[in-house]
C-alpha cells in the first residue's frame, strides 16, 4: 500500500510538473511572431502566378506518393489542372479546390476552399477525399463511429508524406494513440498481443472506416469472427461449448492487454466464479488460506487454477468432454 501511495505521489508530481511546464511555456510562447496578419502584396491585379512549391516546399513529397503518379489516370496528378503553369501544381486543386484566388493573394486567409487539419471542419475535408475513396474499406464510412465523432481523413492520414504512418504496422499504433490514449498504456501490461513489437496493427482487428460489427468497428461481423481470423482453433462448433466463449471472446479476454495471462479480465478462479456459482468447488471462497503451495485447495487456485483440470475452456470435442476437461 505504501508503495502504491508513493507511486501515486510520483505520478501526481510528474503531472503537476507537466502542467506547470506547459503553462510557463505557454506564456513565453505567446511572443512567437506570426506574420499571417501582415499586409500582403497582392498579385491579383497583375495576374502573376507563383508555383505552389515556392511557399509549400515541404508538401511536395506528395509527388512521391500514389497520389502523385501521373501514369494512373485516377490520381490528382493525372486529373488536375495547373493554374500556375507548373505541372507539379496540377494536383493541388483536385483536393483543395480552386486555388486561383489564393495564388493571387496568398496571405489573405480563407481563400483556400478546402483545408485539411484539425482547425477545419471535417465534412468538407472528407467529401473531398470520398470523391474518389468512397468504395472498398470506406463503404461503411457514413454513420461509422469515426464519422459520427467528426474525425476527418486527415486526422489519421498524411497524404503528403512519402509514406503514410497509419498504413504501416510499425507506426500505425502511434497514430491511433493520439485519441485512444488508454490503449498505449494497456500495451505495456503484462499480457498482450504483439502490437508493441510491431507485429499486430490496430487494423488487424479494427476497421477504422466503419463496419457491420455490433461495436468497436471490427474487421468482421462480430467479435468472435474477428478473433477467429488468427484463432480459428477456437471456432468449433464444439460438441461441448463454453457458452461464455461462444457468446463473445471479450467476456473473459481484454485484447488490448491485461496483467493476467492470457489477456484475462480478472484472475482465476475469481473470473470463473463470476458465473460459476453452483455445486462442488466452483462456488468456494478461495482466500489467502487456499494459496499455500501445500494446501489442499491449491489444485484449483495455483498454476492455471480452474484450467489445471478444465483445460478445454474454449470448448471440447471429446465425447466425454462435457466438463471441458478432455
Amino acid at each position: 500500500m505504501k508503495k502504491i501511495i508513493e507511486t501515486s505521489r510520483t505520478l501526481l508530481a510528474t503531472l503537476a510538473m507537466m502542467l506547470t511546464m506547459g503553462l510557463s511555456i505557454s506564456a513565453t510562447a505567446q511572443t512567437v511572431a506570426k506574420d499571417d496578419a501582415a499586409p500582403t502584396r497582392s498579385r491579383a491585379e497583375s495576374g502573376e502566378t507563383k508555383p505552389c512549391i515556392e511557399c509549400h516546399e515541404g508538401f511536395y513529397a506528395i509527388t512521391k506518393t500514389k497520389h502523385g503518379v501521373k501514369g494512373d489516370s485516377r490520381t490528382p496528378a493525372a486529373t488536375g489542372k495547373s493554374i500556375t503553369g507548373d505541372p507539379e501544381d496540377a494536383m493541388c486543386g483536385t483536393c483543395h479546390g480552386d486555388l486561383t484566388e489564393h495564388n493571387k493573394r496568398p496571405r489573405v486567409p480563407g481563400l483556400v476552399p478546402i483545408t485539411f487539419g484539425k482547425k477545419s471542419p471535417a465534412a468538407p475535408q472528407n467529401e473531398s477525399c470520398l470523391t474518389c475513396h468512397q468504395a472498398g474499406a470506406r463503404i461503411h464510412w457514413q454513420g461509422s463511429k469515426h464519422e459520427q465523432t467528426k474525425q476527418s481523413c486527415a486526422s489519421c492520414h498524411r497524404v503528403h508524406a512519402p509514406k503514410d504512418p497509419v498504413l504501416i504496422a510499425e507506426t500505425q499504433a502511434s497514430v491511433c494513440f493520439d485519441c485512444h490514449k488508454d490503449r498505449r498504456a494497456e500495451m505495456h501490461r503484462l499480457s498482450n498481443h504483439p502490437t508493441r513489437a510491431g507485429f499486430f496493427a490496430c487494423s488487424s482487428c479494427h476497421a477504422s472506416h466503419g463496419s457491420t460489427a455490433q461495436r468497436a468497428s471490427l474487421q468482421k461481423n462480430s467479435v468472435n469472427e474477428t478473433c477467429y481470423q488468427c484463432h480459428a482453433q477456437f471456432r468449433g462448433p464444439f460438441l461441448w461449448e463454453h457458452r461464455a466463449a461462444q457468446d463473445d471472446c471479450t467476456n473473459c479476454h481484454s485484447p488490448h492487454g491485461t496483467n493476467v495471462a492470457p489477456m484475462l479480465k480478472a484472475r482465476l478462479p475469481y473470473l470463473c466464479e463470476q458465473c460459476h456459482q453452483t455445486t462442488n468447488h466452483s462456488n468456494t471462497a478461495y482466500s489467502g488460506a487456499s494459496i499455500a503451495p501445500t494446501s489442499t485447495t491449491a489444485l484449483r487456485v495455483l498454476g492455471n487454477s480452474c484450467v489445471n483440470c478444465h483445460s478445454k475452456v474454449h470448448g471440447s470435442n471429446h465425447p466425454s468432454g462435457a466438463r471441458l476437461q478432455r
Partner: protein
Amino acid sequence: MKQILRTPVRRRPVTVAVIAALGALTATTVLADPMLTVKLFRDSDVMFRDSDMSRWSENYVELGAGYNSQNSLRFGQFTGLTDKGGFPLAGFNWLSRNEANDAQYWLVHGSNLGFDSRKIQVQGGVQGQWNASLSFEGLKKSQTESAQFYHNGLGTSNLTLRGATAVNPTAINTALLQPFEIQHGRDIYRIGLNALVNKEWDFKINYREDRRDGTRMTGVATTFIAGRGQAMIVPYQIDDKTQQIEAVLAYTATDAQFQIGYHYSRFENALDKFDVQNPYSNAAGNLNQRLSLAPDNDYHQVNATGVYRFSKTTRLNATYSYGIARQNQAFLPYSVNGTTAATSTTAGLPRSSLDGKVVNTLFDVALTSKPLDKMNLKVGFQYRDSDNRTPIARYAYVSRDLNSATVCAPGAATGSCIRSNAPVSTTEKRLVVDGDYEIAPKTLLRASLDHSDKKYTLADRTDTQTDKLTVELRKPVADDFLGSLGYVYTQRRGSSYDKNVYFRNTYTDPAFQGATGLTNNPSMRQFMWADFDENRIRASGSWAINETLNLQGVAETYKQKMRGPNCGQFANPLEQVAVTGGAMSSSTCLGRDTADGNSLSVDLQYQPEENLTTFAFANVSQTGVKQIGRTWSAANASGGLDTKNWYGDILNRDQTLGFGLKWQPEEKWDLGGTYVFNHSVGKSGISQAASGAPGPVIAASTPVPDTWNKLHTLQLFAKWDYSKQISWRFNYLYENLKSYDWALTDVGATSNTAVLFTGQQAPRYSNHVFGVSAVVKHF
C-alpha cells in the same frame, strides 16, 4: 545444472531459402526509431515533414550487429530475441518507380531479418490497373524457460514417464524433472492480387496461410481420488495451419457502390489428440490419458454490400452476410483404457462425429442523412442470427480415462453419467437512431438510442432486451481548447430464468438436487446474459496552448450493476417449497454483482525549437469487480439457497508514465529517447462468513496477497549521416520487468499432493540490448 530442452520450432524451407538469399545482401533493423518496439507517439503536425518514415520510403540496405545481455524467453517473447549474445541486424527497402512517373512499380521490403520474428514483402504492378503482392511474416511466442516436467517426448503429442509412477507429486523423483522451454511460432504467408477491370469494376483476391508449431502448456485432469495426484501441467504440441481466402468484386460509381465477397477459412490440425502418461499410481493401474485437440473446421461466408446515394447528403447502405461454420472431425473413444469399467460405453457413441454446423446470417441496413443544415441523422436496423444446427445427442460421461465411472449406455434415460449437448442459438434485432446537431458554432450535441432484442434457445433465459442511450456535448471552451462530455446509460432486461437448463450437460451434486429439486443454483446469473444497469461518463479535452505546446486529457468512469430478475423467486411453487428459507430477494443474485472502472490519461507534446520535440504521457486506471458467492455443502445446506456467504472484491490498478524526446542538434545527427514505466497491482479481497454458518455476518478471511508487476523500458536511438549515401544507426534498449504472482512465484513442481505443477515462475528479467548498423541508401 540440467540442460534446458527447447521446443523444436520448425524453420520452413521457404523461409530458410528466402532468408539465406537475402542474408547475402543484408542483415537488420532500425532507422531513427526505437528498437524492437513501436513508436509511442506520432510526430506532431508541426514537424510531420521531419517524420522519419525513411525505412519505408527510401531505398536502402541496412546491415549491422547487436548484443543482448541476458537469456530470457519473456523478454523476447514476440521478437525472438531470447538468447544472450550477438545477433545480426538486417533490413532493406527498395522501391522502383521509373523516372517518367510511369504507373509501373515494384517494392521489396524486409525488416528484422536478424530475428526469429521478421517480415519480408514483395509487391509490384501497374498502379491503376493491377498489383500483386507476396509477403512472409514470422512471429515467435515464447513463454517461459522456468518450467520443468516429468515426461519424455517433450514437444511431441505423446508424453511418456521419465520415472516410476508415484502416489502424488510430492513422492515424485525430482531429479528426473527436465527443464523445457515453452514457445511456439507462427509463420504467415500472404498472396494478393488486385485488378481494376475498368473504371467502375475492380476485383481482388487475397490468400493467407498461418502455420503454427511449437508447444504450449495445458492442464490434464487425471484421477479423482483423495490423497492421490489429480492433475498435472504439461506441454502439448502445436502443429496446425489456417488457410483463408478473401475474394471481392466491387462496382463503384458516383451514386452507387456495390461489392460482393466470398470468405473462406479452414483450420487444419495435424494432431487430433494428445496422449500423456499418468504419473500417479492408481487402483486401475492404467497409465494413459488423452486430451482431444482443436478439431479441423471450416467457414464459408458470402457478403454483399450495396450503397445508394439519393442525394448529396442522403445515403442508404445495406449489407447481407451468410456464413456456415462446420466441424465434423471423428470422435475419440470415451476412454483409451480398455480395462476400465467405463470403457464399456465405447460401443455406445451415438455418432461417429459431430456434424456440427452453425449458420450465421446478418442483414444490416442504415440510412444516413442531413435533414437540416446543422443536423446529421442515422437510422439503422440489424438482424443477426446464429442458428446452431449441431445435432443433439446423449453421450456417456467418463470424467477421465482412468476413472471407474458408473457404467451406463448413452441410450439410458437418466443418470449422472449421461450428458446431452446443448447448442445455443441466438437471434438479435437491433435498431439504432443516432443524430447530432450543431447548436452553436463548433458546438455539437449528439444523442443516440440503441435498442437490441435478443432471443436464445437452450440458454438460461429465452430473451433479453438491451437499451443504450448516449448523449454527448462537444464544445470549444476557449479559442484553442476543445472539450467534450459524454454520458451513456445502458440497461438489459429479459425473461425469467430456467433454473434447470444451464447445467443440463454437466454435473449436479446429488445432495444439491435432492435438497432443492434443481440442477442449478437458482440465484446464479451468467453475467453475459444477466440484467444490468450501467452508467458511463467520459470527458476529454484538447488544449493547443500555443503553437509549440499541446495538452490533451481523457477521463472515463463507469459502473455496472447486475440485476435479477427473480433471483430465487421461483415461477413454479413446487420449487419454492423445495428451498428452505423461502423466496429470495432480487438483490441476492450470485456471481458478478458490480463492475466498475476509472481511467485518466494525459498527453503533453512540446516543441520548444524546430529541431527539438518532447512528449510525456501518464495514465492511471482502475477496474474492479465485486462478486458474491455461496459455498454449497452439506454443512450449510439447511441455510437456504439465498444466503450468500462470501464476497469477492477483485481490483486491478495500473499506472503508466512515459516521456521522450527527438532532437536534431545538427543536420547530420538525429537523436531520440523514450522511457516508460508501468506499475500494476492486482488485488483479490475475499470476505467470508464463519464456517458452516452462512448468514449476514461477513468476516475478513485470510487475505490474498497482491500480485504486481513493474516494467521499465528505456530506449535511446541515434542516426548519424556519414554521407548522403551512408548513415549509421545506434540503438540502446534497457528493459526491466519484475513481477509477483502468487499462482506461480515459489510454487514448486512437486510442492502439492494434488497437482504436478511446473515450477514456472512469475516473469522477471533485466536486459540491455545494443545495436549498431550501417545504412546504405539512395542507390
